[in-house]
């Protein structure tokens, strides 16, 4: 035994000492730094601008103007109104769809959910154009109504509140369905049979048992739809009239036409405060944890609820009992008519009604986009239904035009690098958040997800102001950074979801068999979750590829992205070229979504 041997042993032992705490957090440092630099700092700057005068002194001028000029208060009110109605309609329409998906057999569910996912990932712009084709004076709906002789003059369906509501509900309903579905799938399927064996009719069982348990999903869906709707501008701008102007449009106007950043900041602050108030009320009533879908339905103790929550509970109890009685009264009356008997199988009439309703809703969700396809082959120079077929000239026009091809290329490139950057920053953080326990976990997750919750327009304007001073306007790298801010939450959520189903004992097994952590990752973990990683890469790509708000500000006149080019075109004139571009885009997104879906299913089959 020598001294040198001793020293070596000491050195070896030192290597096994636990790493200092700050070093163990390395996987989340890059994402946090990135978001601080390109999200928190620009947004804080924009908002602080709203309280500063020309010489940098504190002032309330902008806020005084905001509340003294009636038009802004009215726009805020219109915004709340549109968002409120959108939320209500999305919940009422989305609930049956989510309910059927959650209670049907797995095969049917997987087939039907594609019809919800397809519109969810199809470009907002494409879907909005679809409604122009359908709702216009010479659109498909008016065309059918008139040819059938139901109406004589075309109905005014477009450029008014009707058009905006149809477009908004169509845009937001998939989000509502998916949010509610995530809660409903956690409801034990045995509960309804249990209630029925205990003597509850269908109505009582649904309203007293299922509905209260699905309520966190309804609330989460309502919150997400409402907050997202507050920041809309595409739909009201293209399907509405000036009377349906929403607050985001005013921000865009202030920045693009007036170059009045402080005032835009003040409006952004108003929007943000509105969103925060809604969040606060939601949290008081239901608790934020329900949002992440982390808590299983009904997992929170009643004792934890505040006064508002208790009031909700009391009113809810009475309401569900009354609704239960009411639906049963209808069912009993129906049975009297149909005559239920003990010696004959009953007709599943309730389920049949549900199926038909859901079918119609799914047609509403997935159908409209397909109307664009025939229009893109029209020989006429305007959008009309039925289109005069057949001509490829609008596709040729895409090739001839100096802007379309570069815009498409730019969108593909930006999308690719956004997805790469978002994966590089987001995946390690997701691993860390999914597997480690630490005191600030919830806070860290909330921070990473916050770009999803903040209205996009605020991020866009903030980045515009920030980029203007660091010279990133009109650059691809600026676009990639901006889009990465938006894509990160999706990447983190999807990778965490994949890891939640991953059996970590496999890693432990590999480690016990002698694999070092990097080799465990490379040889075991990544091959097993590869499909999930590819899916989240694709989602990040699509997020960027379809993004308009940031592109609107950050890309300059010449270097546009595809959605920006479509928007510029649509503002000038809605021409069949747009239909041709939309058709190509629809085809592209459908392929990407189907690929991602196949990947995820393969991942699920493995897990």
């Amino acid at each position, binding site marked *: 035994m020598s001294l040198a041997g001793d020293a070596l042993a000491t050195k070896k032992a030192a290597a096994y000492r636990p790493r200092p705490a700050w070093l163990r957090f390395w996987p989340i440092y890059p994402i946090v730094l990135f978001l601080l630099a390109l999200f928190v700092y620009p947004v804080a700057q924009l908002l602080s601008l709203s309280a500063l005068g020309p010489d940098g002194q504190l002032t309330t001028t902008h806020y005084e103007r905001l509340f003294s000029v009636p038009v802004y208060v009215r726009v805020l009110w219109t915004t709340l109104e549109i968002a409120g109605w959108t939320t209500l309609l999305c919940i009422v329409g989305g609930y049956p769809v989510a309910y059927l998906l959650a209670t049907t057999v797995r095969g049917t569910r997987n087939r039907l959910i594609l019809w919800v996912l397809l519109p969810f990932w199809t470009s907002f712009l494409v879907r909005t154009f679809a409604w122009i084709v359908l709702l216009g004076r010479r659109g498909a709906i008016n065309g059918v109504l008139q040819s059938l002789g139901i109406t004589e003059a075309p109905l005014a369906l477009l450029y008014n509140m009707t058009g905006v509501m149809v477009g908004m509900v169509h845009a937001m309903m998939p989000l509502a369905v998916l949010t509610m579905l995530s809660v409903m799938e956690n409801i*034990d399927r045995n509960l309804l049979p*249990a209630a029925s064996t*205990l*003597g*509850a009719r269908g109505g009582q069982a649904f309203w007293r048992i299922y509905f209260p348990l699905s309520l966190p999903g309804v609330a989460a869906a309502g919150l997400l739809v409402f907050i997202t709707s507050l920041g809309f501008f595409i739909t009201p701008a293209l399907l509405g009239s000036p009377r349906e102007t929403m607050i985001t449009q005013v921000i865009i106007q202030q920045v693009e036409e007036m170059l009045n950043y402080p005032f835009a900041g003040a409006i952004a602050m108003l929007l943000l405060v509105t969103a925060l108030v809604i969040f606060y009320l939601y949290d008081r009533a239901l608790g934020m944890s329900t949002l992440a879908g982390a808590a299983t339905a009904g997992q929170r103790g*009643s004792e934890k609820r505040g006064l508002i929550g208790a009031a909700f509970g009391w009113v809810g109890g009475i309401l569900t009992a009354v609704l239960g009685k009411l639906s049963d009264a209808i069912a009993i009356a129906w049975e009297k008519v149909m005559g239920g*008997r*003990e*010696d004959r199988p*009953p007709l599943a009439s309730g389920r049949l009604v549900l199926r038909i309703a859901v079918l119609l809703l799914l047609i509403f969700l997935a159908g409209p986009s397909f109307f664009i396809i025939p229009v893109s082959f029209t020989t006429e120079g305007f959008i009309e239904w039925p289109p005069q077929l057949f001509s490829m000239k609008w596709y040729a026009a895409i090739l001839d035009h100096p802007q379309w091809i570069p815009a498409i290329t730019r969108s593909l490139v930006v999308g690719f690098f956004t997805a790469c950057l978002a994966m590089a920053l987001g995946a390690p953080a997701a691993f860390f958040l999914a597997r480690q326990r630490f005191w600030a976990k919830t806070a860290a997750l909330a921070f990473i997800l916050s770009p999803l919750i903040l209205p996009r327009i605020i991020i866009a304007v903030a980045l515009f102001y920030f980029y203007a001073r660091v010279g990133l306007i009109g650059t691809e790298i600026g676009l990639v950074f901006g889009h990465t801010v938006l894509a990160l939450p999706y990447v983190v959520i999807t990778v965490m979801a994949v890891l939640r189903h991953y059996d970590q004992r496999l890693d432990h097994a590999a480690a016990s068999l002698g694999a070092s952590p990097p080799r465990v990752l490379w040889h075991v973990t990544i091959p097993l979750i590869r499909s999930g990683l590819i899916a989240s890469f694709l989602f990040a790509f699509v997020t960027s590829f379809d993004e308009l708000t940031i592109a609107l500000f950050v890309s300059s006149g010449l270097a546009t992205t595809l959605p920006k080019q479509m928007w510029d075109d649509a503002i000038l004139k809605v021409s069949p070229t747009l239909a041709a571009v939309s058709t190509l885009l629809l085809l592209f997104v459908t392929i990407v979504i189907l690929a991602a879906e196949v990947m995820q299913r393969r991942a699920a089959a493995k897990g």
Partner: protein
Amino acid sequence: MTIAKLKIRQLRKTYGPVVALAGADLELPEGEFLTLLGPSGSGKTTLLMMIAGLVQPDSGEVWIGGKLATYAPPHRRDIGVVFQNYALFPHLSVFENIAFPLRMRGVPEAEIRREVKRVLEIVQLPDVGERLPRALSGGQQQRIALARCIVYRPSIVLMDEPLGALDKKLRDQMKLEIKRLHEELGITVLYVTHDQEEAMVMSDRICLMNNARIEQIGTPTDLYFRPKTVFAADFLGESNLIDATLERVDGGELELRTAGGAVIRTKGESSRAFARGDAIKFMVRPEMVSVLSSGATADNVVEGRVVDAILVGGVTKYYARLADGTLICATDLTRGPLPALVRDSPIRLGWPDTAGVVLPARELAA
């Protein structure tokens, strides 16, 4: 004469080409504890679900409490079901869970309070009414599920593997608990399990199921000592099965010749009429077989070679191979350390002529 609480006539269910239940008949008198026992896929859960009204049969009849209920909706059947994962409503307190069936029946509030208190005392959890189900342990949740089921005094209580989610110790405890409740309250129970021990401990009668059919119905003693098929003999307890041919039939006495040439004599009633020359299987329980010391004798004696001797705990198992290759097991109470047996040394095994059962060699179509 009492009316059967439950009567099943030729109940049948298929899923596409798969037969889940092929025409079952069953009767359940008041106060009886009947267990549907069988391996998974034998049709026992399908049968239970059709009685509960949660699955619709293709044909046949279900009578509950003397009333035809084949296609009646579950809420009008006067049954109670205890589900495998309990299916307690997670958003309702224990009190409200138990009150639920009473509220559905429009019972006045004062009576609801009294009844819920009563059943909570019966299941020995009087103080948990205000808690939410998830605040209780698995065993407590199980008791609440039982309480919720008996509070409205249904004609029959159906239980679908209710102890499946509990650990062994708790399972043993709950077995006795359920048996006690059954005896004290006089409820009629139809119980589903794949665990033969559960079935033996609790049941008045066992309905053994296999391949979508009822294999045999009888008391636990009946099934254990007088199985009618090889499946029944094999599923309940351990068994030695020996291939043999019938040599002589003489009233209640049979003489068999095994494939290895040994002669076995056996007495006792037989479920089927056998004829001379029939190929049969002879079954004898290991605990009826004893290892014979040199000089000792028995009604039936076979010779073989030692394969293994294992100390299991309370019993010691001896394995021997007969000349024709059949493996025979003999179980004896452990009375001391394992005797030193040399592998492949000769061993003699014996059993009384009343210990065995003669079974048809092939499963006959029912």
